[in-house]
């Protein structure tokens, strides 16, 4: 589902205009991003936990050239799904 579709569906459910919902969605994203940048975690009950994690530096090897690299430390994002979603996912039939 692309952004457009998301906005459209959302506007329909809320009864707001597309422009409105698009704006509010952008602001929401901005707020979440700003907090993540600051290192704050965002926990939405039932949905999940969005947090930042520090990853230490490590040595990795290019398998083709066997070149060794030192990859510097970095901060990355992690998402842990909440219990409600996990339960719902279990109900889905897995094909194949």
């Amino acid at each position: 589902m692309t952004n457009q579709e998301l906005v459209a569906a959302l506007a329909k459910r809320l009864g707001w205009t597309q422009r409105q919902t698009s704006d509010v969605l952008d602001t929401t994203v901005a707020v979440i991003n700003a907090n993540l940048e600051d290192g704050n975690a965002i926990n939405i009950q039932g949905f999940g936990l969005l947090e930042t994690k520090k990853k230490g530096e490590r040595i990795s090897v290019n398998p083709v050239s066997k070149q060794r690299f030192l990859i510097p430390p970095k901060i990355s994002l992690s998402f842990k799904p909440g219990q409600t979603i996990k339960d719902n996912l279990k109900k889905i039939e897995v094909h194949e």
Partner: protein
Amino acid sequence: MNERLTLQDLIDLLAKKQDITKKDAETFLRELIALISETIEANEPVKIKDFGTFKLVRVNARKSVDVNTGADIEIAAHYKLSFAPDKSLKEAVNKPFAHFESVQLEDGVTFDNIEDEIADLDKDDSVETDQPIVEELPIVHVLQPDEKIVIKDVADEVEEAFDAIIYDDQSDRKSSKRWYVVFALGLFVLIAAFLFIGGYLDKIPQYIEAYTSQPADSIKEEPVLPIDSIGSVDSLALKVDSAAIASDGIKVEPSVTPENIGEETIRSGHTLRNISLQYYGHKSFWVYIYEANRDKIANPNNVPLGTKLVIPSLNNYGIDPKEPKDLEIAKAKERALFKAMD
């Protein structure tokens, strides 16, 4: 920083920023979450601009053990929800570490070594060698698994970088490594030497005392250590062997002048300190004997045998050997002299 925000906090922040009522903000957020959840559960990925993508990832079935019974159990295949952040978000989150870059490593360098003994020079060297070279190398871009880069461009870039690295490496490697080994070794030797000397500096008076308080036999084994010349230890030991034993009475020549209360000829086993003890009642007053005989005493630690010293009257210096205050003054002089001897 390091706070945990809840949905409520988000609602408040959103209402404030967007200038809508808190009720509207709440409705919006709850609807958004519900919509995303439903879409996900329909196994349809949700992509949000400048944020990221939520999608389902299939997890294969695996064998495991039931925690309670210990019986074998199979965990069925299922889906898990994964979130892949957008590039802009990733970079924004990594801002504090943004200036770091991947670099090539020399062969044989591992980072377990850093935790080992720091005294281990060779390993120190290899780490040291790394640092400057690491900073000089051009940027090497490491391919991340999920980065969608046009392969052609990167290949060119990487090739160029590799060429540059190999060129720099070959010319610098050997000379730099050797230079660092020599430098580190030299530094280590210097530091060790200073510590060694520093350690002994405090002990000189002790050694002088020990030297005198023991009979001649054991003097040979005692490590008397003057600062400037270690060679003189040998010469002193030789003198000890051939000179008279300390049990000799101290010869006092009775040439007493108003300034002097006596004279002393240095024999084996004499030190300025114990002469001071004998004449003044305290060892620290040797500083005045030294001052009175400065022309004769080049190094108070090592006064050659046979030197004739005049023992001054302390009244000349306004000192009363029985005054504790004057003792302090003498001690202060002592310290100053030691410092000057460095």
